[in-house]
Protein backbone atom coordinates (compact mmCIF):
# COMPACT_ATOMS: atom_id res chain seq x y z
CA UNK A 1 0.00 0.00 0.00
CA UNK A 2 2.83 2.38 0.93
CA UNK A 3 4.53 1.55 -2.37
CA UNK A 4 1.35 2.40 -4.31
CA UNK A 5 1.11 5.69 -2.43
CA UNK A 6 4.72 6.49 -3.30
CA UNK A 7 4.12 5.74 -6.98
CA UNK A 8 0.90 7.76 -6.94
CA UNK A 9 2.90 10.71 -5.63
CA UNK A 10 5.56 10.26 -8.27
CA UNK A 11 3.01 10.04 -11.06
CA UNK A 12 0.90 12.97 -9.94
CA UNK A 13 4.01 15.16 -9.92
CA UNK A 14 4.30 14.50 -13.66
CA UNK A 15 2.56 16.96 -16.05
CA UNK A 16 0.87 14.04 -17.85
CA UNK A 17 -1.21 13.30 -14.75
CA UNK A 18 -1.42 16.73 -13.21
CA UNK A 19 -4.84 17.44 -11.69
CA UNK A 20 -6.07 13.83 -11.83
CA UNK A 21 -8.37 12.97 -8.91
CA UNK A 22 -7.05 10.72 -6.17
CA UNK A 23 -9.13 7.69 -7.23
CA UNK A 24 -7.68 7.78 -10.74
CA UNK A 25 -4.19 8.28 -9.37
CA UNK A 26 -4.58 5.35 -7.04
CA UNK A 27 -5.88 3.22 -9.87
CA UNK A 28 -2.93 4.23 -12.08
CA UNK A 29 -0.45 3.65 -9.29
CA UNK A 30 -2.00 0.21 -8.72
CA UNK A 31 -1.07 -0.63 -12.35
CA UNK A 32 2.44 0.84 -12.01
CA UNK A 33 5.83 -0.14 -10.64
CA UNK A 34 9.25 1.44 -10.46
CA UNK A 35 11.97 -0.29 -12.42
CA UNK A 36 15.61 0.19 -13.29
CA UNK A 37 17.43 -0.79 -16.48
CA UNK A 38 21.15 -0.94 -17.03
CA UNK A 39 22.91 0.91 -19.81
CA UNK A 40 22.47 -1.00 -23.07
CA UNK A 41 19.42 -2.98 -21.91
CA UNK A 42 16.30 -2.96 -24.08
CA UNK A 43 13.10 -1.67 -22.51
CA UNK A 44 11.09 -3.00 -25.42
CA UNK A 45 11.70 -4.17 -28.97
CA UNK A 46 9.90 -3.66 -32.26
CA UNK A 47 6.97 -6.03 -32.73
CA UNK A 48 6.54 -6.89 -29.06
CA UNK A 49 3.11 -6.21 -27.52
CA UNK A 50 2.80 -2.57 -26.49
CA UNK A 51 1.03 -3.07 -23.21
CA UNK A 52 3.06 -0.67 -21.08
CA UNK A 53 4.27 2.89 -21.07
CA UNK A 54 7.06 4.43 -19.09
CA UNK A 55 7.85 7.71 -17.40
CA UNK A 56 11.60 8.16 -17.52
CA UNK A 57 12.55 9.27 -14.01
CA UNK A 58 16.27 9.51 -14.66
CA UNK A 59 18.70 8.74 -17.47
CA UNK A 60 18.59 8.68 -21.25
CA UNK A 61 16.87 6.34 -23.68
CA UNK A 62 17.35 5.88 -27.42
CA UNK A 63 14.45 5.04 -29.71
CA UNK A 64 16.01 2.93 -32.42
CA UNK A 65 15.18 1.22 -35.68
CA UNK A 66 16.90 -1.92 -36.85
CA UNK A 67 17.55 -1.79 -40.56
CA UNK A 68 18.80 -5.08 -42.01
CA UNK A 69 22.36 -4.76 -43.24
CA UNK A 70 22.87 -1.43 -41.49
CA UNK A 71 23.89 -0.30 -38.04
CA UNK A 72 20.93 0.39 -35.75
CA UNK A 73 19.67 3.90 -36.17
CA UNK A 74 18.66 6.18 -33.32
CA UNK A 75 15.73 8.27 -34.45
CA UNK A 76 15.22 10.13 -31.20
CA UNK A 77 16.57 10.24 -27.69
CA UNK A 78 14.41 10.66 -24.60
CA UNK A 79 15.47 12.14 -21.29
CA UNK A 80 14.44 12.60 -17.68
CA UNK A 81 10.71 13.15 -17.19
CA UNK A 82 9.78 12.22 -20.74
CA UNK A 83 7.20 9.67 -21.75
CA UNK A 84 8.41 6.47 -23.40
CA UNK A 85 5.84 4.73 -25.56
CA UNK A 86 2.51 5.64 -27.07
CA UNK A 87 1.86 2.54 -29.21
CA UNK A 88 -0.25 1.10 -26.38
CA UNK A 89 -2.98 3.55 -27.40
CA UNK A 90 -3.43 2.41 -30.97
CA UNK A 91 -4.12 -0.95 -32.60
CA UNK A 92 -2.35 -3.25 -33.24
CA UNK A 93 -0.78 -2.39 -29.86
CA UNK A 94 2.74 -3.40 -30.81
CA UNK A 95 5.96 -1.40 -30.53
CA UNK A 96 7.11 0.26 -33.75
CA UNK A 97 10.62 1.00 -32.46
CA UNK A 98 13.17 -0.38 -30.04
CA UNK A 99 13.79 1.51 -26.81
CA UNK A 100 17.26 1.04 -25.34
CA UNK A 101 18.80 2.53 -22.22
CA UNK A 102 21.71 4.80 -23.17
CA UNK A 103 22.64 5.17 -19.51
CA UNK A 104 21.50 3.38 -16.38
CA UNK A 105 17.91 4.49 -16.08
CA UNK A 106 15.01 4.49 -13.66
CA UNK A 107 11.44 4.47 -14.88
CA UNK A 108 7.91 4.22 -13.58
CA UNK A 109 6.30 1.55 -15.72
CA UNK A 110 2.54 1.66 -16.13
CA UNK A 111 0.51 -1.36 -17.19
CA UNK A 112 -1.20 0.21 -20.17
CA UNK A 113 -3.35 -2.80 -21.02
CA UNK A 114 -5.14 -2.30 -17.72
CA UNK A 115 -5.42 1.45 -18.34
CA UNK A 116 -6.75 0.77 -21.84
CA UNK A 117 -9.58 -1.35 -20.41
CA UNK A 118 -10.34 1.32 -17.86
CA UNK A 119 -10.47 3.97 -20.62
CA UNK A 120 -12.89 1.79 -22.60
CA UNK A 121 -15.13 1.63 -19.54
CA UNK A 122 -14.77 5.23 -18.52
CA UNK A 123 -14.77 7.47 -21.58
CA UNK A 124 -14.24 10.62 -19.60
CA UNK A 125 -10.97 9.24 -18.31
CA UNK A 126 -10.19 7.97 -21.82
CA UNK A 127 -10.74 11.42 -23.29
CA UNK A 128 -8.58 13.06 -20.63
CA UNK A 129 -5.79 10.56 -21.26
CA UNK A 130 -6.06 11.18 -25.02
CA UNK A 131 -5.84 14.94 -24.48
CA UNK A 132 -2.70 14.52 -22.40
CA UNK A 133 -0.92 12.08 -24.71
CA UNK A 134 -1.91 13.54 -28.08
CA UNK A 135 0.15 16.76 -27.82
CA UNK A 136 3.24 14.68 -27.06
CA UNK A 137 2.59 12.48 -30.08
CA UNK A 138 1.95 15.54 -32.28
CA UNK A 139 5.10 17.25 -31.05
CA UNK A 140 7.17 14.17 -31.84
CA UNK A 141 5.62 13.93 -35.29
CA UNK A 142 6.51 17.56 -35.93
CA UNK A 143 10.06 16.98 -34.71
CA UNK A 144 10.35 13.98 -37.01
CA UNK A 145 9.26 16.14 -39.95
CA UNK A 146 11.92 18.68 -39.06
CA UNK A 147 14.55 15.95 -38.99
CA UNK A 148 13.33 14.74 -42.38
CA UNK A 149 13.84 18.19 -43.86
CA UNK A 150 17.56 17.72 -43.13
CA UNK A 151 17.98 21.43 -42.42
CA UNK A 152 21.72 21.44 -41.98
CA UNK A 153 22.62 19.37 -45.01
CA UNK A 154 25.54 20.72 -47.01
CA UNK A 155 24.77 22.77 -50.09
CA UNK A 156 26.20 20.06 -52.32
CA UNK A 157 23.45 17.70 -51.17
CA UNK A 158 20.27 19.73 -50.99
CA UNK A 159 20.83 23.42 -51.45
CA UNK A 160 20.52 24.90 -47.97
CA UNK A 161 23.19 27.09 -46.55
CA UNK A 162 23.38 27.97 -42.84
Amino acid at each position, binding site marked *: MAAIKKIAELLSAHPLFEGFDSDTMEFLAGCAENKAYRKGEYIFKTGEPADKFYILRSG*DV*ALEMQIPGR*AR*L*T*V*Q*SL*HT*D*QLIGASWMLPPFTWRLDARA*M*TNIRVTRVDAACLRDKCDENHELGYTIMKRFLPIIAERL*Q*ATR*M*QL*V*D*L*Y*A*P*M*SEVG*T*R*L
Partner: protein
Amino acid sequence: MRAVSADEATSSWDLGMVPRPFRVRKNRRELNDVVTLELEPESGEPMAFEPGQFTMLYLHGIGEIPISISGDPSHEGVLVQTIRSVGAVSEGFCNLSEGDMVGVRGPFGRPWPVEKTDGKNLLIMAGGLGLAPVRPAVYWALQNMDRIKKLNILYGARTPDDALFPSQLLGWEAVDDVKVLLTVDRPVDDWYGRVGVVTDLIADLDIDPQETIAMVCGPDVMMNFTIQSLRAWGLDGENVYVSLERNMKCAIGWCGHCQMGPHIICHDGPVFSAPEVAELMSVWEL
Protein backbone atom coordinates in the same frame (compact mmCIF):
# COMPACT_ATOMS: atom_id res chain seq x y z
CA MET B 1 15.51 53.29 -47.80
CA ARG B 2 18.19 55.12 -45.86
CA ALA B 3 18.60 58.80 -46.65
CA VAL B 4 22.20 59.96 -46.57
CA SER B 5 22.78 63.63 -45.83
CA ALA B 6 25.33 65.69 -47.74
CA ASP B 7 27.48 65.96 -44.62
CA GLU B 8 27.36 62.25 -44.13
CA ALA B 9 28.12 61.54 -47.76
CA THR B 10 31.63 62.92 -47.73
CA SER B 11 33.31 60.01 -49.42
CA SER B 12 32.74 56.46 -50.50
CA TRP B 13 35.24 55.46 -47.83
CA ASP B 14 33.12 57.01 -45.06
CA LEU B 15 30.04 55.27 -46.42
CA GLY B 16 31.70 51.89 -46.19
CA MET B 17 31.78 51.42 -49.97
CA VAL B 18 35.51 50.85 -50.31
CA PRO B 19 37.05 47.61 -49.08
CA ARG B 20 40.04 47.85 -46.74
CA PRO B 21 42.94 45.47 -47.34
CA PHE B 22 43.21 42.67 -44.78
CA ARG B 23 45.73 39.83 -44.67
CA VAL B 24 44.88 36.23 -43.81
CA ARG B 25 46.64 35.37 -40.56
CA LYS B 26 45.20 31.89 -40.24
CA ASN B 27 42.82 29.58 -42.10
CA ARG B 28 41.50 26.89 -39.76
CA ARG B 29 39.39 24.07 -41.15
CA GLU B 30 36.35 23.53 -38.93
CA LEU B 31 34.40 21.02 -41.04
CA ASN B 32 34.78 19.53 -44.51
CA ASP B 33 33.25 22.60 -46.11
CA VAL B 34 33.71 25.22 -43.39
CA VAL B 35 36.74 27.27 -42.41
CA THR B 36 37.41 30.05 -39.94
CA LEU B 37 39.60 32.87 -41.21
CA GLU B 38 41.56 35.19 -38.97
CA LEU B 39 42.18 38.46 -40.77
CA GLU B 40 44.38 41.42 -39.83
CA PRO B 41 44.17 44.92 -41.28
CA GLU B 42 47.18 45.66 -43.45
CA SER B 43 47.27 49.14 -41.95
CA GLY B 44 45.16 51.47 -39.88
CA GLU B 45 42.75 50.86 -37.05
CA PRO B 46 41.64 47.36 -36.08
CA MET B 47 37.98 46.67 -36.83
CA ALA B 48 35.76 47.14 -33.76
CA PHE B 49 32.39 45.41 -34.02
CA GLU B 50 29.37 44.42 -32.00
CA PRO B 51 28.09 40.83 -31.67
CA GLY B 52 25.83 39.98 -34.60
CA GLN B 53 27.38 42.37 -37.11
CA PHE B 54 28.73 41.24 -40.46
CA THR B 55 31.28 42.37 -43.02
CA MET B 56 31.37 42.30 -46.80
CA LEU B 57 34.37 40.15 -47.74
CA TYR B 58 35.85 40.82 -51.14
CA LEU B 59 38.02 38.33 -52.97
CA HIS B 60 39.97 40.07 -55.70
CA GLY B 61 38.64 39.32 -59.12
CA ILE B 62 36.03 36.85 -57.86
CA GLY B 63 33.40 38.69 -55.85
CA GLU B 64 32.09 39.98 -52.57
CA ILE B 65 29.91 38.22 -49.96
CA PRO B 66 28.35 39.11 -46.60
CA ILE B 67 29.76 37.04 -43.73
CA SER B 68 28.98 37.38 -40.03
CA ILE B 69 31.80 38.06 -37.64
CA SER B 70 32.29 34.98 -35.46
CA GLY B 71 35.12 36.22 -33.22
CA ASP B 72 35.41 37.78 -29.81
CA PRO B 73 34.31 41.44 -29.83
CA SER B 74 36.89 42.23 -27.15
CA HIS B 75 39.74 41.10 -29.45
CA GLU B 76 39.70 43.96 -31.89
CA GLY B 77 43.07 43.26 -33.47
CA VAL B 78 41.86 40.25 -35.39
CA LEU B 79 38.76 39.82 -37.48
CA VAL B 80 37.39 36.25 -37.27
CA GLN B 81 34.89 34.96 -39.84
CA THR B 82 33.54 31.45 -40.34
CA ILE B 83 32.65 30.56 -43.91
CA ARG B 84 30.91 27.62 -45.55
CA SER B 85 31.85 26.88 -49.13
CA VAL B 86 28.63 27.01 -51.15
CA GLY B 87 29.61 28.77 -54.37
CA ALA B 88 32.40 30.53 -56.23
CA VAL B 89 33.17 33.31 -53.77
CA SER B 90 32.79 31.41 -50.50
CA GLU B 91 34.83 28.55 -51.94
CA GLY B 92 37.56 31.04 -52.87
CA PHE B 93 37.64 32.27 -49.28
CA CYS B 94 37.78 28.73 -47.92
CA ASN B 95 40.85 28.05 -50.08
CA LEU B 96 42.86 31.07 -48.93
CA SER B 97 46.29 30.60 -47.38
CA GLU B 98 48.16 32.47 -44.72
CA GLY B 99 49.43 35.79 -46.10
CA ASP B 100 46.77 36.13 -48.83
CA MET B 101 45.08 39.51 -49.15
CA VAL B 102 41.33 40.18 -49.12
CA GLY B 103 39.15 43.28 -49.03
CA VAL B 104 36.82 43.97 -46.09
CA ARG B 105 33.97 46.46 -45.78
CA GLY B 106 32.12 46.98 -42.55
CA PRO B 107 31.20 46.13 -39.91
CA PHE B 108 27.55 46.50 -40.82
CA GLY B 109 24.13 45.79 -39.43
CA ARG B 110 22.08 45.89 -36.28
CA PRO B 111 23.74 43.73 -33.61
CA TRP B 112 22.30 41.24 -31.11
CA PRO B 113 20.74 43.34 -28.30
CA VAL B 114 23.16 42.09 -25.63
CA GLU B 115 22.39 45.05 -23.37
CA LYS B 116 18.80 43.76 -23.05
CA THR B 117 20.13 40.72 -21.18
CA ASP B 118 21.10 42.79 -18.11
CA GLY B 119 19.76 40.93 -15.06
CA LYS B 120 18.20 38.28 -17.31
CA ASN B 121 19.02 34.85 -18.67
CA LEU B 122 20.53 34.68 -22.12
CA LEU B 123 19.32 31.78 -24.21
CA ILE B 124 21.22 31.10 -27.42
CA MET B 125 19.63 28.68 -29.88
CA ALA B 126 21.60 27.80 -32.97
CA GLY B 127 21.40 25.28 -35.76
CA GLY B 128 24.21 24.20 -38.06
CA LEU B 129 26.50 27.02 -39.13
CA GLY B 130 24.17 29.40 -37.24
CA LEU B 131 26.44 29.00 -34.22
CA ALA B 132 29.04 31.22 -35.92
CA PRO B 133 26.99 34.46 -36.00
CA VAL B 134 25.92 34.03 -32.35
CA ARG B 135 29.40 33.13 -31.07
CA PRO B 136 30.33 36.81 -30.47
CA ALA B 137 27.26 37.09 -28.20
CA VAL B 138 28.48 34.00 -26.31
CA TYR B 139 31.93 35.60 -25.88
CA TRP B 140 30.25 38.78 -24.69
CA ALA B 141 28.11 36.87 -22.19
CA LEU B 142 31.05 34.88 -20.83
CA GLN B 143 32.83 38.16 -20.13
CA ASN B 144 29.72 39.65 -18.54
CA MET B 145 28.41 36.83 -16.37
CA ASP B 146 28.05 39.32 -13.52
CA ARG B 147 25.47 41.18 -15.62
CA ILE B 148 23.38 38.21 -16.67
CA LYS B 149 21.76 35.42 -14.68
CA LYS B 150 22.44 32.30 -16.69
CA LEU B 151 23.72 31.52 -20.14
CA ASN B 152 22.06 28.60 -21.91
CA ILE B 153 23.24 27.43 -25.30
CA LEU B 154 21.06 24.97 -27.21
CA TYR B 155 22.66 23.76 -30.40
CA GLY B 156 21.44 21.42 -33.14
CA ALA B 157 23.75 19.88 -35.71
CA ARG B 158 23.23 17.40 -38.50
CA THR B 159 25.60 14.77 -37.07
CA PRO B 160 28.04 14.82 -34.15
CA ASP B 161 30.84 15.41 -36.65
CA ASP B 162 29.06 18.46 -38.08
CA ALA B 163 28.95 20.30 -34.75
CA LEU B 164 30.83 23.56 -35.07
CA PHE B 165 33.42 24.60 -32.44
CA PRO B 166 33.09 21.29 -30.48
CA SER B 167 35.95 21.92 -28.06
CA GLN B 168 34.64 25.38 -27.27
CA LEU B 169 31.18 23.96 -26.57
CA LEU B 170 32.78 21.65 -24.00
CA GLY B 171 34.79 24.50 -22.50
CA TRP B 172 31.75 26.77 -22.17
CA GLU B 173 29.82 24.00 -20.46
CA ALA B 174 32.41 23.93 -17.67
CA VAL B 175 31.74 27.57 -16.74
CA ASP B 176 29.46 28.27 -13.73
CA ASP B 177 25.91 29.26 -14.69
CA VAL B 178 26.45 28.13 -18.27
CA LYS B 179 24.53 25.19 -19.71
CA VAL B 180 25.31 23.79 -23.15
CA LEU B 181 23.14 21.14 -24.78
CA LEU B 182 23.84 19.61 -28.15
CA THR B 183 21.47 17.48 -30.18
CA VAL B 184 21.96 15.90 -33.57
CA ASP B 185 19.55 14.84 -36.30
CA ARG B 186 21.61 11.82 -37.32
CA PRO B 187 23.76 10.07 -34.76
CA VAL B 188 26.79 7.94 -35.46
CA ASP B 189 27.35 4.56 -33.84
CA ASP B 190 29.24 5.67 -30.76
CA TRP B 191 27.05 8.69 -30.03
CA TYR B 192 25.48 8.60 -26.60
CA GLY B 193 24.22 12.16 -26.69
CA ARG B 194 20.88 13.53 -27.73
CA VAL B 195 19.08 12.80 -30.97
CA GLY B 196 16.31 15.08 -32.15
CA VAL B 197 15.66 18.66 -33.12
CA VAL B 198 17.06 21.64 -31.26
CA THR B 199 13.64 22.65 -29.93
CA ASP B 200 13.48 19.33 -27.99
CA LEU B 201 16.15 20.81 -25.74
CA ILE B 202 13.87 23.60 -24.51
CA ALA B 203 12.24 21.10 -22.13
CA ASP B 204 15.58 20.87 -20.30
CA LEU B 205 15.83 24.54 -19.46
CA ASP B 206 15.55 25.35 -15.79
CA ILE B 207 15.18 29.10 -16.21
CA ASP B 208 12.16 31.39 -16.09
CA PRO B 209 10.96 32.28 -19.62
CA GLN B 210 9.73 35.63 -18.32
CA GLU B 211 13.31 36.47 -17.35
CA THR B 212 14.95 35.38 -20.57
CA ILE B 213 16.18 36.93 -23.79
CA ALA B 214 16.68 34.49 -26.68
CA MET B 215 18.97 34.88 -29.68
CA VAL B 216 18.30 32.41 -32.46
CA CYS B 217 20.32 31.70 -35.59
CA GLY B 218 20.10 28.97 -38.16
CA PRO B 219 18.18 28.11 -41.33
CA ASP B 220 14.88 30.02 -41.65
CA VAL B 221 12.77 26.91 -41.03
CA MET B 222 14.66 26.19 -37.84
CA MET B 223 14.25 29.78 -36.64
CA ASN B 224 10.54 29.77 -37.42
CA PHE B 225 10.00 26.50 -35.58
CA THR B 226 12.13 27.73 -32.67
CA ILE B 227 10.15 30.97 -32.31
CA GLN B 228 6.93 28.95 -32.05
CA SER B 229 8.42 26.57 -29.51
CA LEU B 230 9.85 29.40 -27.40
CA ARG B 231 6.45 31.08 -27.37
CA ALA B 232 4.83 27.82 -26.27
CA TRP B 233 7.45 27.61 -23.51
CA GLY B 234 6.29 31.03 -22.27
CA LEU B 235 8.79 33.44 -23.79
CA ASP B 236 7.34 36.69 -25.08
CA GLY B 237 8.04 37.12 -28.82
CA GLU B 238 9.47 40.59 -28.11
CA ASN B 239 12.30 38.86 -26.29
CA VAL B 240 13.21 36.53 -29.13
CA TYR B 241 15.73 37.78 -31.70
CA VAL B 242 16.72 36.15 -34.97
CA SER B 243 19.38 36.89 -37.55
CA LEU B 244 18.08 36.94 -41.13
CA GLU B 245 20.93 36.21 -43.46
CA ARG B 246 19.32 36.81 -46.85
CA ASN B 247 21.66 37.68 -49.64
CA MET B 248 22.73 41.29 -50.04
CA LYS B 249 24.95 43.46 -52.18
CA CYS B 250 25.75 46.99 -50.98
CA ALA B 251 25.36 46.32 -47.22
CA ILE B 252 24.62 50.00 -46.54
CA GLY B 253 20.92 50.13 -47.33
CA TRP B 254 21.19 51.64 -50.79
CA CYS B 255 20.65 49.03 -53.42
CA GLY B 256 17.54 47.27 -52.09
CA HIS B 257 18.88 43.84 -53.03
CA CYS B 258 18.14 42.47 -49.57
CA GLN B 259 14.77 44.12 -49.13
CA MET B 260 12.23 41.86 -47.40
CA GLY B 261 8.84 43.52 -47.12
CA PRO B 262 9.40 46.80 -45.28
CA HIS B 263 12.92 45.88 -44.14
CA ILE B 264 16.28 46.43 -45.78
CA ILE B 265 18.03 43.53 -44.09
CA CYS B 266 21.58 44.89 -44.29
CA HIS B 267 20.59 48.15 -42.68
CA ASP B 268 17.59 47.38 -40.45
CA GLY B 269 18.95 43.92 -39.57
CA PRO B 270 20.28 41.30 -39.89
CA VAL B 271 19.10 40.97 -36.27
CA PHE B 272 15.35 41.44 -35.78
CA SER B 273 12.93 40.72 -32.98
CA ALA B 274 10.51 37.89 -33.77
CA PRO B 275 7.42 40.13 -34.08
CA GLU B 276 9.26 42.39 -36.56
CA VAL B 277 9.70 39.53 -39.01
CA ALA B 278 6.85 37.18 -38.08
CA GLU B 279 5.03 37.49 -41.39
CA LEU B 280 8.10 37.65 -43.57
CA MET B 281 9.73 34.53 -42.24
CA SER B 282 7.04 32.26 -43.52
CA VAL B 283 7.06 33.68 -47.05
CA TRP B 284 8.71 31.36 -49.51
CA GLU B 285 11.53 32.82 -51.67
CA LEU B 286 11.06 36.39 -50.49
